[in-house]
């Protein structure tokens, strides 16, 4: 969605927020892996460490979009 001369593509915003969330969730998942929470406070299927691998997936998606659509001098369309 290009707009006049310099509108930042929406994909960049998406990449940026997903990247930030990926960092936070991966870090949380890693902490939970090295320092497991007490058994009574764990969610179902905790042992699969879904937060770690889902966080890594977000990280990859976020990196892809924020790099591919980062604002440049010569603007590319969305």
């Amino acid at each position: 969605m290009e707009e006049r001369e310099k509108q930042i593509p929406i994909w960049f915003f998406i990449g940026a927020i997903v990247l930030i969330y990926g960092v936070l969730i991966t870090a949380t998942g890693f902490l939970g892996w090295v320092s497991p929470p007490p058994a009574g406070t764990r969610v179902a299927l905790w042992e699969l460490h879904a937060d770690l691998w889902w966080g890594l997936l977000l990280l990859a998606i976020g990196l892809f979009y924020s790099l591919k659509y980062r604002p440049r001098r010569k603007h590319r369309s969305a």
Partner: protein
Amino acid sequence: MAFLSLIAAMSGSASMLHLRPVDLLIIIIYFIFVLAIGFYLKKFASTGDDFFMAGRKMTAWIAGLSFISANLSSLETMGWSAMAYQYGMLGAHGYLIGAIPAILFLAIVMMPFYYISRTHSVPGYLQLRYGEGARSVAGISFSFMTVAVSGASMFAMAKILNLLLGWDMNISIWVASLTVAVYVTLGGLLSAVFNEVLQFFLIWLGSLLIPILGIIHAGGWGKMMAAVQRNVAVIHPAVQNADFTSLWQNLGSFASNPMGIDWFGMLFGQGIAVAFGYWCTDFLQVQRVIVAKDLRSAQNGTIIGAALKMMVPLIVTIPGLLGLAVLMNSDGSPMVLVPESDPRAGITHNTFNDVLPLLMGKYLGPGLLGLGVTAMIAGFMSGMAGNVSAFATVWTHDVYKPLINRKGSDRHYLNMGRWSSVVGVLLSIATAYTLFFFSNILEYLQVLVFFFIVPLFGTVILGMLWKRATPAGGFWGFLVAILFSVSMWAYVHTFPHGYQPQPKVTLSHGAEVLLTRANAAKPGAISYISIESGALDLVNVPLFGHEEGGEFTVQDQPLYMREVAPLRKTAAPIQILAPEVVIADTREQQKFGLSAVPARISPGVKVRSTFISRRFDPAAFNPDHVKVIARSDKAKPMAVNMYSAWWSLVVCLLVTIVVSLFTRPKPEAELKNLVMGLTPLPKEEAAPWHRKPLFWAVVVMAVFIVINIIFW
């Protein structure tokens, strides 16, 4: 982080889910992002066309994502998960027969007319085709509907934040509303579209883990479906013999499925009336694609939306089914959720609408839970924003401009759009509270759909396909069908002989009770309750010597209450609700809900007894009247809505045709670009086969058929 820890602690131990600081950080980042986007986009919304139509520059992908996201609000995720919990696999029809044929019809048949007429809105098309009368009815009714649906979004969000965080519902409504008001007022449709596309990603990334983990937990698809069919005997005893796991093979009779509907109602009510009304003429949806940069982008964007729509059952229908399969009480029995209208709702039982939050709490740990909650908040807010931006457009172009001030400048209408966004938010807040009348959030939406959207579709489609349709025919067909819809709704909620709510006893907070657990059929279950002190609120429960009701204190001799109470036609089990009582011998605090258990009321207990009989109750359905509309007294609210939509469409078409035959049509010259046969479609530029809308429409239709066969 200390600040976040403090807020997390304030979330309250009584709330359903416990958020950690990282979850709150994720939520706060989302709010900062959407506000920043709103401020950033303000400079790109400097003309009326920018504000109302996003500059008409969207690509097919953005139009398609926005088209489907406008519909993928959290009303959808929560509401359709609740539907699947209530109606099983039939809940997926909203994404299949209730969407795909209609979206493809919009793309291939209707989009050229919307696009070529260069209208600002669907009511705008009506004005061009039929004149001011039809446009005014559509503009006013659509304005009303958008704020009402936006109110539904607010209610849903306030409820979920209350449930998850323990936040006050009023504060939640105002915080979310102000955020939406800021970013829509600044950036208009562009801002709404940006946030919709952002929300699409968040909702998938935040929700997809639930079905993945849930199916692993259930032991695979087959075991999940077996557990669903096994548990409904406990969860939905009234329809325990119904098939919850099929799309079509359980629609042979009204009794063989949990919705109380047959194939005709599903195909013509859901598949034709509701679906075509919603997808082809709901301006909120259509606005998303008519602003694409060219006709082919508008058509391809719509078809992309259809393909994405078919995937949504993964994140809504499967969680609803998982609610039936894997949500268990601590004793291993299936957890029973109830409708919002059930007296036990929120006291001793969670509701249908809580199925998704309950699954989030079960499977999502710190961080992921924050993402899941953010996805829901994003969905609520983009739902609100979509409705508010559509309201601003229709109010400014179809009500204010033609009826109040025809001579304003572009700057004047831009300001009116901005102010009406704020007014739209305020009106939405006012409507948010009416939701308590309806048993399910989505049913509320369904009611609105068949009030306005279905008649609108009848009027628009005749206008597009039949050049003989006259302005008078369009106006009267539309108006009479709206009135007919409202009348049908009133009819099914009317009780000529009075409606008596189920007999109910509510114990006051702190009341003392003694419980007897001696039930041969269910060991450990409560079989008798003695109320030792406190106060009771009785509804439709006669007590010996106090058959007329009133307030009194039990004197020297105890009173005894039976398991059932007589109503006008039958006897009904008495519900006993104890939101917070004390067990007299152990001093333990407890809450519970019982049905059909006898009770003793000790001397000294205060009683307030009322007998209620209403002629009209919007939360109750009269089975005798339901049978007239939906062809079966087994029909559930959703089935009633589908049949009502069908009759509404039939009435609209009949009245429009009959009136048109007796009135003067517009000259053909005035119908150019508006009616099939009088509209020269622009020559398509040469394009490879894989960019042609018709090719992709056929592909999507084929996939749709295959899905229906697999889950038949």
